[in-house]
């Protein structure tokens, strides 16, 4: 019962019902219209025939006498056919003709009978009542004559039409019910199984997928799309979990250190001189935390950012030179050869600050890690190349590099390889570079320089002018 009620709630079922109704209605209207028109036409023809007969008879009457007219009518009435003849006196008694009985009112009024009327003719066996239309007129001496025609033919036509209408309607309803059962039930079953899976997914099982029938129909296509959506959601969910785990860990550690330091200072002798030192350490530690937060927020905003927010036209080679100039003394101090391949101006459209920060982050990393390398002298190079509308800013160092299996992973937030744990940094530098590249529809790729690391910051650009 519930299933049937649900059936009515389904769009497919409701639609097929509406279609069946509309089609049925049209069929009825069409058949009725045709039947009415045809009947009218047939009646008109009948009337014409009657008129012709009357014309003939009136000629006979004018030439001869009443007796001759009656004689002719008697003769014609005896002949087989659909014609009706009747002559009655003023009291309504039938004098001649082939009609045995007729409704009394018919003869009272001259002219065309308004509607087909029932009559009984001679030689008619019991059967369906016959109908006819006729014209009544007055003859001298109070006599009345009726000339008409049986409507057997038009009536038969009507009954055929009625029967075919019923047949068509019955067929339509039957077919409608069949399609509706087939389509509707099938759809119902599919939707049932889909909503079952959805419920399980809602209950928390993100690994569940919607079933596919393999037919590739619209249900399958929808399920496929929803499954892809689910895949993306669960991947994001995993990422989120990982990020929050990392955040919890990476923020808790310095917070704990901060707390311990404050506690230690408190429990020590307040008069002691290293009080100031402790406070300075605490401030430095909180500054690092603030830096980490800022970096996290910045990545989040870059990732959520719109393509053109803060985009301007600027010279990329200018920025590269600035970054080189900014880091050159640092590199020299660290004993790293820092080379820049000079370039012509390259005007691009993008976020100047973010790209500047990204390149600075890469150079910063390169200098920091090239020092670890065994190969001497330590070297870092900064180059721009431009191929097929792709602009590459490549930072290469000859440090220890990153093993291939970690080259993707280090782009995630807070991922720091063990050997870099001791270095200062938030573990967010490469995540930001990656986010900035993606904001510009580009990508950050890390490769092996053997030895060392190649960081390739690529953005697709229409170079505005050379």
């Amino acid at each position: 019962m519930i299933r049937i009620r649900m059936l009515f709630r389904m769009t497919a079922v409701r639609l097929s019902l509406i279609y069946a109704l509309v089609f049925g209605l049209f069929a009825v209207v069409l058949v009725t219209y045709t039947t009415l028109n045809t009947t009218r036409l047939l009646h008109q023809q009948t009337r014409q025939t009657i008129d012709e007969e009357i014309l003939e008879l009136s000629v006979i009457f004018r030439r001869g006498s009443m007796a001759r007219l009656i004689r002719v009518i008697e003769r014609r009435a005896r002949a087989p056919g659909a014609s009706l003849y009747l002559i009655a006196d003023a009291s309504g008694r039938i004098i001649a003709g082939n009609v045995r009985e007729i409704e009394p009112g018919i003869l009272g009024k001259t002219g065309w009978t308004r509607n087909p009327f029932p009559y009984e003719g001679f030689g008619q066996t019991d059967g369906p009542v016959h109908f006819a239309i006729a014209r009544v007129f007055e003859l001298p001496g109070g006599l009345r004559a009726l000339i008409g025609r049986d409507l057997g033919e038009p009536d038969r036509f009507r009954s055929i039409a009625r029967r075919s209408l019923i047949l068509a309607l019955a067929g339509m309803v039957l077919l409608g019910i069949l399609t509706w059962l087939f389509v509707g039930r099938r759809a119902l079953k599919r939707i049932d199984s889909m909503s079952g899976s959805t419920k399980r997914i809602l209950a928390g099982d993100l690994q569940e997928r919607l079933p596919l029938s393999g037919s590739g129909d619209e249900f399958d296509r929808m399920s496929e799309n929803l499954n892809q959506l689910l895949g993306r959601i669960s991947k994001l969910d995993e990422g989120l979990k990982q990020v929050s785990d990392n955040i919890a860990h990476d923020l808790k550690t310095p917070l704990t250190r901060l707390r311990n330091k404050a506690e230690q200072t408190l429990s020590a002798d307040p008069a002691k001189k290293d009080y100031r030192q402790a406070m300075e350490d605490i401030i430095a530690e909180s500054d690092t935390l603030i830096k980490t937060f800022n970096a996290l927020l910045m990545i989040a905003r870059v990732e959520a950012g719109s393509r053109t927010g803060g985009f301007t036209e600027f010279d990329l080679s200018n920025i590269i030179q600035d970054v080189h100039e900014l880091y050159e003394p640092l590199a020299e101090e660290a004993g790293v050869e820092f080379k820049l391949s000079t370039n012509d101006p390259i005007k691009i459209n993008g976020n100047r600050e973010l790209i500047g920060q990204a390149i600075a982050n890469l150079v910063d990393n390169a200098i920091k890690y090239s020092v670890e390398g065994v190969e001497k002298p330590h070297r870092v190079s900064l180059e721009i190349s431009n191929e097929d509308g792709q602009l590459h800013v490549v930072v290469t160092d000859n440090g220890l590099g990153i093993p291939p299996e970690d080259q993707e992973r280090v782009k995630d937030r807070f991922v720091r390889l063990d050997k870099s744990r001791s270095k200062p940094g938030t573990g967010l530098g490469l995540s930001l570079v990656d986010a900035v590249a993606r904001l510009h529809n580009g990508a950050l790729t890390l490769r092996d320089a053997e030895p060392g690391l190649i960081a390739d910051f690529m953005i697709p650009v229409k170079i505005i002018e050379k």
Partner: protein
Amino acid sequence: MKILLIEDDLEAASYLVKSLKEVGHVAEHASDGELGMSMALDGGYDVLVIDRMLPKKEGLSIIADLRDSGDQTPVLILSALSQVDDRVTGLRAGGDDYLSKPYAFSELLARIEVLSRRRISGESETNYRVGDLEMDRLAHSVKRGEQEIILQPREYRLLEYLMKNAGRVVTRTMLLENVWDYHFDPQTNVIDVHVSRLRSKIDKGFDEQLLQTVRGSGYILKSQKG
């Protein structure tokens, strides 16, 4: 120096007012935009410190209205919005400097002092002098005593900024913003290396060290001899 702080976070405000008073400034506080606007219009302040998100009247609209009324008091905008775009909007609205939360008090103080000075002097001076260090901005030359000092273009601009703000603490971010025109945060202390290079050029071999590091804040260029 008389400073007006328009900030709705009462705890942060009272901490700032107290700290500013401790270092010898006169600090007043308004807790919403309308009150702040009317206090600012009464005038007499050397620097206004305005938070962006305020009840009753938004920070940027206070600044715009002040500028429309012809008030040119230097404004430092405080904001929790740190994106570069927000900084640009803030400066375009008529602010003179922009500091994003959270910030160190030393950073705020350094910026306030530099802002107040901007009003008095300006870019027009052709000569800077700190002790026996002299900069001729027309000839682009630097001398310490009788000795000519050769500087790289960037070192020159670094020294120019330090001399313009002589006697005041300038922070690393201020240097990065004003000397390099970048608003990002270098991961390591690249600025320190630049400063120490400059220091070796201007102070090496001289008795008085003019360029000093202020722990936890930044740098200061000053001379005891005046």
